[in-house]
């Protein structure tokens, strides 16, 4: 293992360890906030696999988040499935959805891909509303009356407990982050980056770029779905607003802010934006202006985001 490789794994281990050990230091409010951030950061990590490493911008990722959310939530709501099987079902639903969607949508690229994702996302949102009888539509539904514990290896943890939320969120986040790290540092990951840089050239190196992009989209959608399923289980709510276009724009914002194409960027971006919005809300009613302003600042002065800029200037070894 080369030194830079060791340094990379150490850095990620350190970040995860810090999150694990920080628990006693976090006041209750921030404790649960960080748990929320970790779940939403998973969503951004998934988004980043597609945007940051494969160069495909999507405006329909809320569809995958919602697939995971409903894939986990509906079986709990209707059949009382346990938390872990529900998580697995949610992940499976989003993986299947992303793969099927990719088969169709990846025939396009660039701006056309972006619009196709947006259209499918919108159609999916409307579908959730329309089949209200089953999905409970815009009102959504609550899981805490059906499922109260997380059963792992015979032990039952109370899902209402902040510590369970935090550690479960951290667990899912660790898996997603390390999976994304493993992927982007693998030979396949290198191919994805090559596609981002120059797809035509990559094809002539003997790579089936369609399949590679399909893989990236599937992994990306699956991680987003894992985030959705985890959100449903930990925060007990499933609703169609998570499939709206605004919810597709968020991971784009988080990823760009933290640094697209850096493994830790999504976490940084999600956390910063989460707190930025909270504090902006204390200052102005129109706190979404902050979202707009951050997007403009990023595009104009920091297109590579925080960690991307740091990597360019100081630490080229950052993955």
């Amino acid at each position: 293992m080369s030194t830079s490789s060791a340094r990379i794994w150490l850095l990620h281990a350190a970040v995860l360890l810090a999150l694990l050990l920080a628990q006693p230091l976090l006041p209750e409010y921030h404790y649960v906030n960080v748990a929320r951030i970790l779940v939403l950061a998973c969503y951004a990590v998934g988004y980043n696999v597609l945007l940051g490493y494969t160069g495909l911008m999507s405006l329909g990722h809320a569809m995958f988040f919602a697939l995971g959310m409903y894939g986990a939530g509906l079986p709990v709501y209707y059949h009382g499935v346990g938390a872990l099987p529900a998580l697995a079902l949610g992940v499976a639903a989003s993986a299947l959805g992303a793969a099927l969607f990719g088969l169709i949508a990846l025939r396009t690229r660039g701006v056309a891909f972006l619009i196709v994702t947006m259209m499918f996302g919108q159609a999916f949102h409307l579908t959730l509303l329309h089949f209200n009888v089953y999905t409970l539509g815009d009102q959504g539904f609550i899981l805490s009356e059906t499922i109260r514990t997380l059963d792992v290896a015979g032990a039952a943890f109370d899902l209402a407990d902040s510590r369970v939320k935090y550690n479960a969120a951290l667990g899912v986040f660790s898996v997603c982050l390390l999976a994304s790290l493993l992927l982007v540092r693998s030979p396949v990951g290198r191919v994805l980056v090559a596609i981002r840089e120059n797809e035509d050239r990559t094809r002539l190196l003997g790579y089936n770029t369609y399949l590679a992009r399909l893989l990236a989209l599937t992994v990306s959608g699956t991680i987003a779905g894992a985030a959705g399923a985890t959100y449903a289980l930990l925060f007990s709510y499933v609703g169609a607003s998570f499939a709206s276009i605004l919810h597709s724009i968020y991971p784009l914002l988080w990823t760009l802010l933290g640094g697209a194409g850096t493994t830790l960027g999504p976490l940084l971006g999600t956390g910063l934006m989460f707190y930025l919005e909270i504090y902006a809300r204390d200052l102005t009613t129109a706190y979404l202006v902050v979202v707009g302003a951050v997007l403009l600042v990023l595009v104009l002065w920091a297109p590579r985001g925080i960690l991307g800029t740091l990597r360019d200037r100081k630490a080229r070894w950052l993955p």
Partner: protein
Amino acid sequence: MGASRGGDESTSSSSQARRISRRGALKTGLAGAAAGAGLLTVGGIPAARAAGSDRPIRIGFQVHRTGIGAVYGRWYERTANAAAAYINELGGIAGRPVELVAEDDGTDPRRGAEVVEKLATREQVDFVYGTLFSHVVIGSAPRAGELKIPYFVVSEGYHVASGKLNRYVFQPGITDVRSQITAVAGWMMGNLGKKVAMIFPDYAFGYDHRDFLSAAVEAGGGTVTARIAIPPTETAYSKYFPRIPADTEVLYHVMVGPGVLTFVREMGEHFGSRRPAVFGFVDSLEGVPMTSPGLEFLDGTYLWEAMPRQAGQYDTPHERFYRERVGVGPDGASIRDPKDVSTYSHMFGCWETLFAIKEAVEQSGYRDPTPADRKALIETLEGFHGFNEGRSHPQGPKVFDGRLHQCFGQQFVSKVNAGKLEVVHRTAIEDSRYEPAADYTKMAL
């Protein structure tokens, strides 16, 4: 429901703690901080814990300042502030001043839950209150239950009474959609006709109307001639009107969101004078001036109102007092800006809910956000049977069903006459009752 007709402050009738608490509250109100000691005996709270606890009662206020609910949210906020100011004039809650801690939820369920989190854990409020839109209520309720913080919603959704939420969620200040429909359906069929066509938004709120009205119509021997669901993104409505069969006697409509005016106007354009009787929910026109261009078509149609927008239509001293305190003029618009029309039919819920909280706190002897105090508060509130009409409950008397955590009240049917809403019928509370489907009191705390 108690028989007393309180002038300034009404009280609920059931609790034994009532007299003590009132005396305590008055005393504190008169004597200020020094009288804090007078409360020490209330509800058997140990004296040691109460030391220095003249801190304000902090009530977290989850409000739709942005997003699709913002029109309601603005008036909810004004009403809540007016109610809090009045409560403080009266000496506060159990002698302690009330402080509202408002936070925008963006009319978004995800943010709603985060706001509950912030209010409960960072702001350390005693209760959370105020939400209207049902998806925000449903998104926020689980977290409130987990944090074991009493959560008072002002939503008119049926979700509280349906038993879907948890024991910490109450709706003591506004009636739910199901009871509203149940109450007015009888009048509608008796006076306008029994062949009813319905137009409603194609999402959950509309489905409540579709299901409960259909049931009520069929129970009353009528028929539903058409159920027309309008997509949430629609901006033009004329094309839907041909679906209304010619033999329809009553057209029942309910819409929410910014498209409602267009809807009503196009309905008028389409039918002209050859229209069936029209009965709608005022939700379609909350915050909208009745003098808006195109609304003249509504002349002669009927609307459900929970609280009559037009002054003098439900002429009680309490209503007049309330109207003045929230700053609403005779036509339902803000006194300061006649174009700024209130959400009069819903926002009284914020006022009444705060008073319900006041009464529950005072009668339960609640002091601090501890499990024991919260338990006492919840059990006390569940023991309430209703609220008397008065300044604290200006919309009218309420029956409270502790099993459902839901109140029931009178409803109004108004006729549009030259741009004014004139009340033609007032329902009795009994008209709005339905078979309860839940019992929260059996749930664990």
